[in-house]
């Protein structure tokens, strides 16, 4: 994991001191909300429905036990005993008092964390594959480049006031778990003739006008990445619309300019930049950053574990969890564990302070002190020895953290919705809970297989409904909550935006409609291994629409 140098530590400390002064002036009435709002947003502080909300950056979702324990302390001492994991792999606190936020930021600074650039029209937290550095299917670890992008984009003076917020994601695995094609910039690491570079996708995004990103470059060599990113940002900063916030994201610029012309503009800027002001990151600096992400000292182990096999045979619940929540590790004898934060009828993405302490302890004791937050609002322990797995599982189970549903139908992405959010039109969490209850039987859920349901409480799409295999969008109809269902979205390497099925449904009709969709899939699939999304793409959406709306009539 990257460690702050003296410059990092100094700028974060200075930022805390500066914000402490700004808060004091706000509390004394010297500055009013209109003046204070841009200042608080630059420090991740929103004013939500009930209270202030503080969003804390977790670069590419990586934590260690020291950081996780600090997040637990903040939840316990400054909030109401929990935090909420977000789709940018960050954490949000929902009840923190403004007067306390400078102290919270000081706590965060002690463990090399902050809330800078978690809001506002700047480059936000760079996200990545939550299995980075552990998964078998990556060509290399993308985290060093995420860190380089983080350092380049933090306090970059040219990009502090962009037309709109800006999100970058990086993956190095063929199977895209970082949703790069629905990001402003998505980077897919590729290998060509022994050289590593980046396939560059630009202009993806969700919100009210969803777009899949356009591929603007097949291969940008590592050494030129920052120049290329800077060229894209300059084209966006120059031509991106500032007259209408709904048309200000780069996806609109790419779409209105056309992919070919946009690419030409980027290439032109890139060529000019390479001539005159090449960033030319020194190889020594690239190597220095890579050294922070050196693999841990894995033991020489057999690919199989007798202890693991014995435990599975003795404990069917553990066996089921092992089949669902583990991901293949690149080193024999190890696995990556997904800790689901989606218990049935629970609070999607929330972890209590006690649960955070358990996860910190397990990472420190059994997991090379490595923890990841996923964009699907779960937590991952990327490096657990199979020999230790049953011990880890039992501790997770005792803490309410052993739900076996990773990437299954009850593992939904759910935005906070109208229960918390000032922008929401409808609640998301209760709808998700009711759907979970329908699929609570583990055998039924396993039979359905992998299926992503994503729920947003408004068109801003924080719950990624556009790219859910089944997407659910809350809408307001004269003060009543209704839900629009879409089908066929996906966030992976075959990214697609879902199609709206038909008229919106009342909240109590949604769980039944989802069950109808799922049972239609089970009737239509060629065999139990054909996934929901594959059946949907094979047969089209009509049988599902007919089943839902005929049942409703």
């Amino acid at each position: 994991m990257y460690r702050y140098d003296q410059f990092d530590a100094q700028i974060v400390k200075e930022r805390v001191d500066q914000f402490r002064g700004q808060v004091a002036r706000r509390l004394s009435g010297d500055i009013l909300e209109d003046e204070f709002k841009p200042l608080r947003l630059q420090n991740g502080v929103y004013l939500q429905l009930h209270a202030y909300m503080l969003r804390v950056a977790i670069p590419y979702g990586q934590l260690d036990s020291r950081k996780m324990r600090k997040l637990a302390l903040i939840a316990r001492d400054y909030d109401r005993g929990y935090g909420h994991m977000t789709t940018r792999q960050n954490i949000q606190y929902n009840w923190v008092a403004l007067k306390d936020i400078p102290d919270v930021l000081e706590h965060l600074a002690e463990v090399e964390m902050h809330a800078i650039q978690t809001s506002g029209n700047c480059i936000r937290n760079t996200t990545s594959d939550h299995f980075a550095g552990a998964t078998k299917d990556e060509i290399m670890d993308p985290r060093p480049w995420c860190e380089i992008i983080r350092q380049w984009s933090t306090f970059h003076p040219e990009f502090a006031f962009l037309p709109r917020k800006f999100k970058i994601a990086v993956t190095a695995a063929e199977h895209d778990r970082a949703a790069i094609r629905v990001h402003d910039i998505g980077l897919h690491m590729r290998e060509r003739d022994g050289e590593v570079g980046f396939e560059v996708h630009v202009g993806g995004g969700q919100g009210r006008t969803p777009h899949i990103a356009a591929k603007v470059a097949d291969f940008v060599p590592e050494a030129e990445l920052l120049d290329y990113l800077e060229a894209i940002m300059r084209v966006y900063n120059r031509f991106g619309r500032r007259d209408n916030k709904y048309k200000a994201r780069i996806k609109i610029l790419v779409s209105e300019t056309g992919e070919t012309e946009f690419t030409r503009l980027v290439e032109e800027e890139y060529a000019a930049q390479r001539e005159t002001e090449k960033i030319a990151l020194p190889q020594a600096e690239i190597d220095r950053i890579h050294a922070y992400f050196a693999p841990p000292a894995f033991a020489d182990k057999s690919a199989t574990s007798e202890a693991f096999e014995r435990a599975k045979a003795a404990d069917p619940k553990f066996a089921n969890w092992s089949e669902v929540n583990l991901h293949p590790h690149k080193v024999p004898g190890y696995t990556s564990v997904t800790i689901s934060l989606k218990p049935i009828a629970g609070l999607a993405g929330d972890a209590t302070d006690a649960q955070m302490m358990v996860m910190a302890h397990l990472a420190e004791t059994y997991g090379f002190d490595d923890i990841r937050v996923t964009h699907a609002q779960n937590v991952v322990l990327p490096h657990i020895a199979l020999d230790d797995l049953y011990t880890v599982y039992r501790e997770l189970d005792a803490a309410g953290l052993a739900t076996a549903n990773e990437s299954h139908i009850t593992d939904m992405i759910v935005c906070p919705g109208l229960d918390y959010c000032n922008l929401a039109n409808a609640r998301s969490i209760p709808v998700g809970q009711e759907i979970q209850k329908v699929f609570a039987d583990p055998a039924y859920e396993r039979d359905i297989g992998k299926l992503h349901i994503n729920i947003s409480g408004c068109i801003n799409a924080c719950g990624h409904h556009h790219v859910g295999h089944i997407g659910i969008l809350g809408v307001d109809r004269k003060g009543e909550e209704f839900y629009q269902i879409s089908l066929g979205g996906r966030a992976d390497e075959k990214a697609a935006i879902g199609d709206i099925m038909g008229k919106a449904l009342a909240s109590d009709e949604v769980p039944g409609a989802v069950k109808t969709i799922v049972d239609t899939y089970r009737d239509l699939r060629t065999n139990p291994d054909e996934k929901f999304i594959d059946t949907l793409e094979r047969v089209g959406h009509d049988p599902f629409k007919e089943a839902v709306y005929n049942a409703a009539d």
Partner: protein
Amino acid sequence: MTSVRPKLKPETPKTITAWDTASGQVVWMRADGSWSDDPTELGVFTGAAAEDALAKAQTQEGEITDPYFMEVTADGQIAGRETLRESIRANGPTVPYGVII
């Protein structure tokens, strides 16, 4: 950015709501112009008195933040198009939180 707030007619009963600046807690204006964190204590205003109350609230933006009209019934119950949103603001999330399920 906040959600769109409906425009209320002068004769529609309303109160003023805002957030306490230091804590972020939701507050409502009492009939005497002071602030309460208890929605049962809210004052009901109409017409010019409501406009005066909002104007007064806007001068108190050190203590409170972003005051606006909220529709209520004549006896002070949350009402109108934003009933669900304002009820959640008043009573908290409709789901339990901070607990291990």
